[in-house]
């Protein structure tokens, strides 16, 4: 299908620029920018005056709940949520049920996703069998099946030797290792940041040192092994500083932060709002401000949604018993824009954290709106206000601390491979 996108504000996160230009799409690719190619006949014209045309969002962590956790959400609903949120590529963590430690499971997931023909899905393979932190997975086989990297999304494994060897093995093949820095024993039973709020509420705390102890071990072993490590979901000021120093010393590491963590602190738990039960926990305002500073100076490369749909039964429980996580695919864009506005950051710079930088983490070429590039686009209205409520979300997960809030930034059209996969009813 030939598509003409007229009068949009083209934002180039890579170049850091913005201009109003038309875009022409043919055969799944961008045929031209500015003037129509010779003999171009549009099958569909999108007049997007006033809207931003951006490369599609790349979400470094979105749980689709398949295989195994379909009672919480289905692939169909979450893939729909992704494109409704302007996400054209997403990475899904291996903590499914069973975990993605077998090539067959990965192939099935990729097949199912491909048949829906919406966003591109990049599965992460389990770093250890069953994610138990003991035995290595068949990383080469998993890579052939489609895994882009290998991960322990839960707490950092307790056995440092296994940690080191898994890095060594991954490096053999040039695979990246994605780790979430949280020491298992220091965070045992913890459900909230170990600080004044947890003290007042009588909640078991996860101290900052749970993150920094794990980070230190990971960084030292990464230096030892030369592994390419991506650090998932930083949460503390001290953690950001450790990553900053490591990057300054030239280590090939990258990091991300969850979109909710960019805005919220433990004070938002209020009187036990279980929607604020997140992993890692929301820490105090000082930590949150350091995360924002880290995003600004590049210590933190990307913002991801860490999309984790949980049903009502999982959240309507006393805080410590609730399932953790927040729905996020449809909030990634507005929360990124909110940060941009508050930090007075240009739109292109902010969008880079959810487009170009995530692609760099994945080792994929940058997102450009230029002839020959795949036509993965997100067209959105940056000014449109909408209320975060269950009816406004496609995801089966309605669990977000943002419920009831008004946010700015609504996706109007999403294109993947030159096909319009989402069209809002406007």
């Amino acid at each position, binding site marked *: 299908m030939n598509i003409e996108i007229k009068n949009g504000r083209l934002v180039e996160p890579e170049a850091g620029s913005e201009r109003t230009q038309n875009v022409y799409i043919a055969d799944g690719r961008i045929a031209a920018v500015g003037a129509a190619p010779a003999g171009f006949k549009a099958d569909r014209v999108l007049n997007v005056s006033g809207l931003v045309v951006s490369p599609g969002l790349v979400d470094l962590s979105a749980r689709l709940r398949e295989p195994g956790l379909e009672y919480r959400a289905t692939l169909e609903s979450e893939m729909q949520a992704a494109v409704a949120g302007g996400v054209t590529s997403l990475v899904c963590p291996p903590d499914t049920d069973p975990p993605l430690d077998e090539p067959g499971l990965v192939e099935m997931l990729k097949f199912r996703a491909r048949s829906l023909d919406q966003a591109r899905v990049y599965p992460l393979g389990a770093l250890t069998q069953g994610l138990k932190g003991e035995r290595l997975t068949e990383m080469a086989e998993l890579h052939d099946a489609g895994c882009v990297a290998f991960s322990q999304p839960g707490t950092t494994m307790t056995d440092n030797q296994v940690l080191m060897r898994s890095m060594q093995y991954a490096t053999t093949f040039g695979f990246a290792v994605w780790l979430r820095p949280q020491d298992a024993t220091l965070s045992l039973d913890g459900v909230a940041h170990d600080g004044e709020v947890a*003290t007042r509420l*009588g909640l078991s705390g996860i101290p900052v040192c749970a993150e920094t102890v794990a980070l230190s071990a990971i960084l030292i072993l990464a230096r030892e092994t030369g592994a390419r490590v991506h650090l998932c979901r930083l949460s503390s000021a001290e953690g950001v500083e450790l990553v900053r120093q490591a990057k300054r010393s030239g280590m090939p590491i990258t990091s991300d932060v969850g979109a909710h963590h960019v805005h919220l602190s433990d004070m938002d738990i209020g009187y036990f709002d279980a929607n604020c039960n997140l992993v890692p926990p929301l820490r105090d305002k000082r930590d949150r401000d350091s995360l924002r500073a880290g995003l600004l100076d590049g210590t933190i490369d990307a913002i991801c949604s860490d999309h984790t749909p949980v049903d009502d039964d999982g959240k309507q429980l006393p*805080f410590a018993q609730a399932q953790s996580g927040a729905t996020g695919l449809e909030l990634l864009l507005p929360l990124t824009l909110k940060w941009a506005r508050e930090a007075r950051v240009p739109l292109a710079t902010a969008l880079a954290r959810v487009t170009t930088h995530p692609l760099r983490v994945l080792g994929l070429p940058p997102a450009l709106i230029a002839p020959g590039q795949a036509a993965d686009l997100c067209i959105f209205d940056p000014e449109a206000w909408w209320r975060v409520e269950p009816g406004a979300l496609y995801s089966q997960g309605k669990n977000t601390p943002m419920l009831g809030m008004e946010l700015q930034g609504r996706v109007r059209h999403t294109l993947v491979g030159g096909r319009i996969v989402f069209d809002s009813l406007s």
Partner: protein
Amino acid sequence: MSADLQINTAGKLQHLLTTEGLPSEILLQILDTARSFVSVTEREVKKVPLLRGKAIFNLFFEPSTRTRTTFEIAAKRLSADVVNLNIATSSQTKGETLLDTVANLTAMHADMFIVRHSESGAAHLIARNVGPDIHVINAGDGRHAHPTQALLDMFTIRHYKGEFKELRVAIVGDILHSRVARSEIHALTTLGVPEVRVIGPRTLLPRQVQNLGVQVFHDMETGLRDVDVVMMLRLQHERMNGALLPSAGEFFKSYGLTPEKLARAKPDAIVMHPGPMNRGVEIDSAVADGRQSVILPQVTFGIAVRMAVMGILAGN
């Protein structure tokens, strides 16, 4: 994010969930009303018809005979109908959710729920999900709060010491795991007690506890100097397992209340304990049974204070 559930739009107490954030007027109203109920408990017919026709459900997800019995006695003395539900053995184990249990009971025309649960925030969760005519009293949720215990302790302090405004109060023991300690601290600071001290080893003090308005002491002899009220907390046996303490014996040596340590406090200082006591662990028998101990009166006052709470709530 959530507004204070406890106080309704008319400024009246709708639920009693925590002493935190309760204005001193409401705390004092409960204490003053409790005085009247003490005089009721001292006469032959210990009942008043105030809550006749009201159904009060004791929802104890965490077992406790003492507290449940106290609430039951208090409710019956108000002429209310009391239903005791020991949830640990009934529907909960069949997988019914907390809120489903509450919804079913509401359908049985409950007017008031008294809730004890092992998780912090349980009472708030229930209060958020009941209709406007139902009142919730938190009888203890995890480590978070035990407001009626704090209130009866405030009543006890006022009974023996008069004014709050010139007192030094020390709370000793496992503050980290104590819902009683948290509720006491909020009540004491709201009522204007100028010096609230917490005394314990570092492993048993929660992070940034001083932000609650207390002074922290690790040495009990120093911490008890010149205090007017000593509140001892119960030490649970499990604490030895989590690498928090080596032994009960060592704890008693440093933090147990003996006559010698008590001598550091003022000569007319009173000794309190929420019960049940571990003699020889946090408190020496000589002190528990001594002339400065008000541990038994605490129990009597507990009934009157709970009558006051129920009487005030049910009418709001």
